[in-house]
């Protein structure tokens, strides 16, 4: 059992992440709280801990943020204002490798994917992550009819990951309007962390 606290206030990226990594790399850290004072550090430390297999909770602590990662059987003392990660029973990752659903008629396929995205929120808190790759990235760019729906999901706490290689391939990097541009390692890591992966390609 090894709980640690790290004070990274006053430090800009990438230092909070590098220091967090140093501690995580030591192994046997079941709970780690990292204090940061800027949003970029909060996001990056959270993301790093998630990638390292931790359940992550970020909470305001005065003007600062306390990012707490837990893993193993340990369960940290949790405040009532938990982020959805801690309250969800399980984590569902939906991978969309297409901008239309099914084969047979493309117009119907586009309608179906619009309906699918619009209905995804019915998964509730269990919907953890939406990954868009290949033509799926077209859903996340300016002009997409589904942009508002995906932005709504993101605002509700769903992590939206958009394949950077795919955006680049379609020359849409500049047009992306929602989600985080990411790489295959990140996508694979999130698939590994998810309790259930639903793949539509």
């Amino acid at each position, binding site marked *: 059992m090894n709980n640690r606290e790290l004070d990274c206030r006053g430090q800009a*990226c*990438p230092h909070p*992440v590098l220091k967090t990594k140093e501690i995580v790399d030591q192994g046997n850290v079941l709970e780690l709280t990292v204090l940061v004072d800027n949003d970029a550090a909060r996001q990056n430390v959270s993301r790093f801990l998630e*990638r390292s297999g931790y359940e992550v909770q970020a909470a305001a602590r005065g003007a600062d943020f306390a990012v707490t990662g837990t893993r193993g059987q340990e369960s940290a003392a949790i405040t009532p204002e938990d982020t959805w990660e801690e309250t969800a029973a399980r984590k569902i990752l939906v991978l969309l490798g297409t901008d239309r659903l099914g084969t047979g008629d493309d117009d119907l396929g586009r309608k179906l994917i619009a309906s699918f995205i619009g209905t995804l929120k019915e998964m509730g808190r269990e919907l953890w992550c939406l990954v868009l790759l290949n033509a799926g990235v077209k859903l996340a760019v300016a002009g997409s009819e589904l942009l508002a729906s995906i932005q709504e999901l993101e605002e509700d706490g769903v992590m939206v990951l958009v394949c*950077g290689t795919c955006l680049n391939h379609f020359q849409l990097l500049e047009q992306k309007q929602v989600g985080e541009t*990411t*790489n295959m*390692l990140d996508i694979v890591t999130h698939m590994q962390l998810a309790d259930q992966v639903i793949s539509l390609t």
Partner: protein
Amino acid sequence: MSDPHESITPEMTLLEVLHQHRRTESVFRRYEREARGCLLCHALFDTLAEAAAKYGLDLDRLLQDLREAAAGEGHES
């Protein structure tokens, strides 16, 4: 493996590069103006290739600058 020319590749994330070669931080900072944003804030988990594409940077030049900075560290453990 400690040769920066071999150890810094386009497939590495910025975080991996920084972790292995701390002196590269100044290079990423230098590219902030060109990228019009904080690479170390917003692209830490991107690969160098992805970050270059995303921010319109010359990947070959970035790699060269990173390798030069890393080489300046001397041999690393």
